[in-house]
């Protein structure tokens, strides 16, 4: 319990900064909506742009003149920020001990390594949940403030649920990498690199249809945002497979950390 509370306290400042940034991000993103929803001829133009060029401009297959389509376009940026937070948190929370030379102090305590990992993972999980809720509330408030059309609150909830799953995937990926690598300090960079690669892949599969097999490598593409924007819920198989991926990563964290030679 101590480890859990202590980790929460240690991450408090970072969490506050991230939450404020997320809120500002949603705010500024929504602020641009008025430009896109000018309506009239703008709509017709957007309809006729070929798919690949739209993808290049970042609009993909959404109708950005409606609130739900625009939110879907904005959502990718929000999701990246949340994923970066999750990845750095996950990698950092395990690597922290060896980086700050507090390993000996912690390991001497009469708690098993498993308990320590559980407390750390739980603390990280709570952080991720809090960030998600902050984003959810800011999105609901901002969309309501700028929305001229239908109410899309339920779609926003679906979006945030998918973001939550992405956060969990990257969080567990960060912890697993950190537990596995010999030099825990590089785990953050490696995990961030994987995230960046996933982002690039998602942008590329947006542009061209032929490389759809690569979608498997990019968690950003596990949920179809077109579906979400239209109001169909999350794809159940994708959810189950993602949660399976999360559990594989979590279990790996435990296994690797148990056998790990910790440098004091």
């Amino acid at each position, binding site marked *: 319990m101590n480890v859990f509370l202590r980790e929460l306290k240690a991450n408090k400042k970072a969490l506050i900064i991230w939450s404020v*940034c997320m809120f500002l991000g949603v705010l500024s993103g929504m*602020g641009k909506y008025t430009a896109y929803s000018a309506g009239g001829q703008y709509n017709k*133009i957007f309809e006729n742009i070929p798919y690949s060029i739209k993808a290049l*401009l970042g609009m993909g297959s959404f109708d950005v003149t409606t609130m739900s389509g625009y939110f879907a376009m904005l959502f990718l940026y929000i999701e990246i920020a949340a994923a970066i937070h999750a990845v*750095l948190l996950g990698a*950092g929370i395990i690597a922290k001990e060896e980086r700050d030379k507090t390993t000996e102090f912690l390991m001497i305590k009469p708690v098993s390594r498993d308990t320590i990992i559980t407390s750390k993972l739980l603390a990280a999980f709570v952080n991720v949940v809090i960030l998600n809720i902050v984003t959810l509330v800011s999105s609901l408030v901002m969309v309501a403030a700028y929305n001229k059309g239908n109410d899309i609150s339920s779609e926003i909830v679906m979006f945030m649920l998918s973001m939550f799953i992405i956060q969990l995937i990257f969080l567990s990926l960060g912890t697993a990498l950190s537990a596995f690598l010999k030099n825990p300090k590089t785990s953050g960079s490696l995990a961030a690199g994987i995230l960046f690669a996933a982002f690039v892949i998602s942008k590329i599969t947006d*542009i061209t249809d*032929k490389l759809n097999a690569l979608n498997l490598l990019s968690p950003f593409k596990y949920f179809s945002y077109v579906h979400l924007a239209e109001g169909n819920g999350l794809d159940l198989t994708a959810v189950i497979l993602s949660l399976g991926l999360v559990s594989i990563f979590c279990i790996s964290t435990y296994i690797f950390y148990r056998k790990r030679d910790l440098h004091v």
Partner: protein
Amino acid sequence: MNMFWHELNSLRKSTILWTCTLIALAGIYFSVYPAIANDAADFKRLLGGYPASVRAILGISLDSITSLLGFYSMIFTFITLCGAIQAMNLGVSILSKETRERTADFLLVKPVSRWAIVSSKLLAALTMLIITNVIYYAAASILATMVKTADFSITLLFMINLTLLFIQLIFFSVGAAVAVIIPKLKSVLPVSLGVVFGFFFIGALLATGENDAARFLSPFKYFNPSYIIRNSNYEAPYLITGAVIVIIATVTAYIIYARKDIHAVS
């Protein structure tokens, strides 16, 4: 001189990795260009049917999108993002390395002034950035020539790629300044990723439009590739702002590092 060579050597692996990443990024995007070129040609024909005002909204940017350089301007955003992360990482890590790795007392008891230390480090990092840019430019030119459908100006490609160097210099110097200002830097990555992505989002969401005051907020928007293509020149106010930022940040790094209390073991 030793310090310069030592830093150069320690940056070797990371620079190779980053250069390969940049080239791979450019390569992947260039590989999808032929498909876009086809689509774009069709679309341009369609655009011909729209009234002039409508074309003005989108037509101007889309006229050049169909060309190789126009496409390159679009994908260049991601290349600069990647390059900025490399530069920021370099800047923050190179001046905080001693503090993080506990080698501070080894380096600082040597009979060299702190100015000399900072100079060697900054020069080594600068050399690596220039090498990255040169290799990237060579690779980009080759890739562009491989996928081109019409001839393009090599000079313009060079000018656009030069902005990568400028943005990297800005982020590098800002990173160096950040590294000396923060008393105890434990981890480079959150700081560098946070700053770079922060500016990226500010640039993407706030600073749009040709002559916006808000463009000064994000180094990513200082150099507009479509402007460069049209005028074969950089926009003076932004170029000057960038240079000023680099100078101020570098001088700050020197001055603060010279007076800073550096802990041998923290």
